[in-house]
């Protein structure tokens, strides 16, 4: 990458590493230089980052209490039948 300007393809390929702060200093500098000049990649990064956050919120579903109660009952029965030291 040294001496060559980063392309959009290069920039999008390293988005995940950028978000995890695992880019080398040289790659980070190239990435930031590309972003400074590339509005589409700035929009891509912003929406990519937002997609990650939304996924966590949209799929962070709690186990229904009635399901938890059924599980508890099933497991206590199983433990009574099968559990304990041999």
């Amino acid at each position, binding site marked *: 990458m040294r001496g060559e300007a980063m392309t959009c393809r290069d920039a999008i390929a390293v988005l995940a590493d950028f978000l995890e702060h695992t880019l080398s200093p040289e790659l980070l500098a190239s990435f930031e230089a590309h972003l400074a000049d590339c509005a589409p990649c700035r929009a891509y990064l912003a929406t990519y980052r937002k*997609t990650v956050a939304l996924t966590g919120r949209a799929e962070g579903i709690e186990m229904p209490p009635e399901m938890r109660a059924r599980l508890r009952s099933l497991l206590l029965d199983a433990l009574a039948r099968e559990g304990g030291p041999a």
Partner: protein
Amino acid sequence: MITAALSLDTLFAPSLDCDPTAMAHVDTEAQLIGRLEAGDTAALESLMARHAGRVYRVALGITRSPADAEEVVQDVFLTLVRKVATFEGRSALSTWLYRVATNSALARRRGKRAQVEVSLEEALPAFRDDGHRDGDRSYLLLDWSERPDEELLSGESRRAMARAIDLLPDHYRAVLILRDVEELTNEEAARALGEPVSSIKSRLHRARMALREELTRYWSQA
């Protein structure tokens, strides 16, 4: 009762060196496992309270069916009850639970896969020969990320997101759930799925790009 099979000296060992606060947690969880092996119902309930919610999220995230997810959670904890004496503690209990849950959930998806899984290639960005983005400029510049979460996570937008996740290939969705919902590291997700870290990273990036594309298409027409 604690047996040699549990290898409690090595259970969670990597975390002991660096995080003193983890010691109490580790001891407690190791003790719970030992007590479960002895048939202690309170230990079982404590382990359920700690882990059932996350096992359910992973199961539901992969199967997309509450009924299937419930069966997966039951499978996972019945396996824990029956096999606790053989749990060797080479990995954290949570890693073991994630592994059993993902295997069980993916097994249930076999034969039930969506008829039309999203073509990931279509959801990936297009580039010109010179490596720069190709496409309508107003679409390329569309940035919906500043909209309020309440708007992004309600109504048709939320349904569009759910559809996009539904249509991901199962192994991509599994990685997405483990990483972006459960917030496992790449290494932890790799252990749960029994796959190389490089595969996890590649699938995660493609799954995120596919979701991002679906949301951008939705907001370009909204």
